[in-house]
């Protein structure tokens, strides 16, 4: 049956769109409803059934189906035959007598869009029209804040004050510039290395700290590991650890925006490693087929924990995959703030105006370890990390440009760093002192309403805690 039901689909898919072939149309319907017909006519092991046992006889089912097919139908076709090309679904396919396989990739690698060169000199001249002084300075200060936030929280983990942390070192431009090109109405479905987007949208340092410490002010109620941020008011859907699961979900969110004719799109972030997951392919294909206004933003940072991209795929990166799905795609220098900003801004415009998906591959580098549970010097050269940390540092590069514009100076730099450090230290202190979430938060939100088994388990657990308080951490309100 699997063969009949599933394999026959492709061949018959296009035939059903041809009203001139009712026989074949019906045979497709029949192939589906034959499941039942067989079920009700098969004589096997002594049981025999007749079609009269059916609620509806097969004939009328097919008739109904034909009616609906007609109702749903479908443009006129030209049925004339020619030998130049084949009018195959999806467009005309020219014939050729030359036997030739397509190349595994195009001769040239897909070019990488940039505006600033490696030392922060502007290659294009029209940049000032694109970006105001105010925005330029905010971009810079946000990148510095993100880096400092990472440094201090990472240190807090090293001191044992929080259990886990993930930095976005080296990817500050990807984070901040992509966020800056969006509207807050655009819905974000992140992976886990995009907290810069949340920072840009106004998530306070205190809100970050509350999540990391899992205290009672954490919106996630202390249920998830550090860095699993989420914010309803900032349209940032809560991080989950499984990779790429957010990608097909983003298409569903985008479809909703499309149906409600919102002036907004969806942006979903993921890494080079995630592009190997089935959900990546599912998401891109769904978005293309359903014309969903979603930007797929891949941070190709070269490493999936210890796996380099050479062990991840043979294609020309991720951007090359877009075309196979029918999605316009671009490769951008992820360490060039202005290029990322520009690419996302244009992608957003396309996604919303043309109601279709866009794929962005940002080339960058994960300067930090994968997480605080990782030591990346075990699998990559220190020189490599150092090179990206200094010579290709997106913050240095951008600072050169902002300073050259006369919009930033050393004094402002010192002031910014001093102020951010103070706010971060304060946020940590406050977060540490806040109570843990109440015990009942262990049981709520599994369902909309708490079912009886959970009520019973809560009651039973409370009794156990009373009996063996030494087994449980203190500070929980029981």
């Amino acid at each position: 049956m699997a063969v009949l039901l599933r394999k026959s689909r492709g061949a018959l898919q296009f035939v059903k769109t041809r009203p001139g072939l009712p026989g074949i149309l019906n045979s497709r319907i029949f192939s589906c409803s034959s499941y039942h017909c067989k079920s009700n006519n098969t004589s096997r092991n002594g049981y025999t059934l007749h079609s009269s046992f059916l609620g509806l006889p097969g004939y009328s089912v097919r008739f109904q189906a034909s009616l609906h097919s007609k109702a749903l139908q479908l443009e006129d076709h030209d049925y004339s035959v020619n030998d130049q090309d084949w009018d195959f679904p999806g467009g005309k396919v020219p014939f050729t007598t030359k036997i030739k396989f397509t190349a595994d990739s195009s001769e040239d690698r897909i070019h990488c869009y940039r505006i600033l060169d490696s030392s922060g000199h502007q290659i294009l001249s029209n940049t000032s029209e694109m970006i105001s002084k105010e925005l330029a300075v905010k971009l810079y200060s946000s990148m510095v804040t993100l880096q400092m936030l990472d440094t201090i929280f990472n240190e807090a983990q090293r001191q044992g004050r929080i259990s886990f942390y993930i930095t976005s070192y080296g990817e500050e431009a990807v984070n901040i510039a992509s966020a800056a090109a969006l509207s807050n109405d655009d819905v974000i479905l992140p992976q886990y290395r995009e907290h810069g987007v949340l920072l840009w949208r106004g998530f306070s340092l205190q809100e970050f700290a509350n999540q990391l410490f899992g205290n009672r002010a954490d919106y996630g109620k202390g249920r998830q590991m550090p860095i699993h941020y989420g914010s309803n008011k900032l349209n940032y859907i809560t991080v989950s650890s499984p990779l790429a699961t957010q990608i097909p979900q983003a298409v569903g969110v985008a479809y909703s925006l499309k149906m409600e004719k919102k002036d907004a799109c969806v942006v979903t972030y993921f890494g080079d490693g995630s592009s190997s997951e089935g959900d990546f392919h599912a998401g891109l294909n769904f978005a293309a087929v359903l014309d969903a206004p979603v930007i797929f933003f891949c941070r190709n940072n070269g490493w999936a924990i210890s796996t380099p991209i050479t062990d991840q795929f043979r294609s020309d990166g991720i951007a090359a995959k877009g075309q196979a799905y029918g999605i316009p795609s671009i490769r951008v220098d992820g360490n060039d703030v202005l290029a990322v900003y520009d690419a996302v801004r244009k992608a957003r415009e396309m996604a919303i105006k043309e109601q279709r998906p866009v794929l962005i591959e940002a080339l960058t580098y994960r300067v930090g370890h994968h997480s605080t549970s990782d030591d990346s010097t075990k699998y990559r050269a220190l020189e490599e990390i150092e090179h990206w940390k200094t010579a290709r540092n997106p913050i240095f590069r951008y600072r050169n440009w902002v300073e050259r514009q006369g919009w930033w100076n050393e004094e402002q730099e010192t002031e910014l760093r001093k102020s951010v450090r103070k706010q971060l230290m304060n946020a940590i202190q406050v977060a540490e002192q806040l109570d843990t979430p109440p015990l009942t938060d262990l049981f709520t939100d599994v369902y909309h309403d708490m079912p009886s088994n959970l009520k019973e388990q809560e009651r039973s657990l409370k009794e156990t805690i009373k009996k063996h308080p030494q087994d449980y951490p203190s500070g929980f309100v029981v």
Partner: protein
Amino acid sequence: MAMRRIGSSSGPNNLFNICRGLSTTTPWLGSPDETKILRNGTTKSMNLFTAINQALHIALDSDPRSYVFGEDVGFGGVFRCTTGLAHRFGKQRVFNTPLCEQGIVGFGIGLAAMGNRAIAEIQFADYIYPAFDQIVNEAAKFRYRSGNQFNCGGLTIRAPYGAVGHGGHYHSQSPEAFFCHVPGIKVVIPRSPREAKGLLLSCIRDPNPVVFFEPKWLYRLAVEEVPEDDYMLPLSQAEVIREGSDITLVGWGAQLAVMEQACADAQKDGISCELIDLKTLIPWDKETVEASVQKTGRLLISHEAPVTGGFAAEISASLVERCFLRLEAPIARVCGLDTPFPLVFEPFYMPTKNKILDAIKATVNY
């Protein structure tokens, strides 16, 4: 109200009838409330797929933010459950998706997270596994992990399940137990057309993600009077569909018809069976089952899925906890064998009427 009797030529050796005999006498009517529905509204005789179809029409009609999608649903679906929907509600609300189950469920989660009712069809329960991660790690935890900032409660995943006589490994499975191990989703299985319509509408409107397994054997075979109007049947509420005093039988979906016949045969031997339709497998109605076992002192659970690790094991353990001193005999499980679902051996694999009848007798005479 009885299901239409099938197989007029059924003899004593008719395996179909043994496996799947549907009683003409079963009073499928349940609570007084449900009877009221029938009295007040008009009803129509229809089969199970038509009842599902009617529920989907009502769901789409009553909420403009509801969507139906999945493989082949545009033309009406391979089981005809989505017939006429695309024509009536448009291709933007009822549409084919690419052939990719993880995509279907992932898409549905995103759609539901925006406050829509996302009604996803997985063509066969046997093909739901590519979507397992999306269901288990994503849909089930969406609300909890966000501290109730986000939820995908509008998601309903429909999938035909169970034996069909010739489905072999991949058109016959009953995978409900996998999903019963996952806090955060509900699992619901209807037994008849009227139940299917009312329960499906409840699932679609429930503020939690639900996996709704439809007994595909009954799509055409089960026919009963179904109210034409919009009605819902409660979730997590089991129903005593046959009252008795000697032994309690618990089941769900298509298996209930087989169990009902075993009950009828046991009656001829003077054994009075109480039969319970669990309807919702998680979170399940322990109280109704417990009350019945406290009365009868004996319990038998039957399902098509393999016995080891099946949901009967969970029911059995829970009832031992609650009714240990009242039990007069070990709890019996009459289930599928611990093999892949076999094609030509299906009649041997199945928890048939006589297997159930033997277990009833053994339990009562223990």
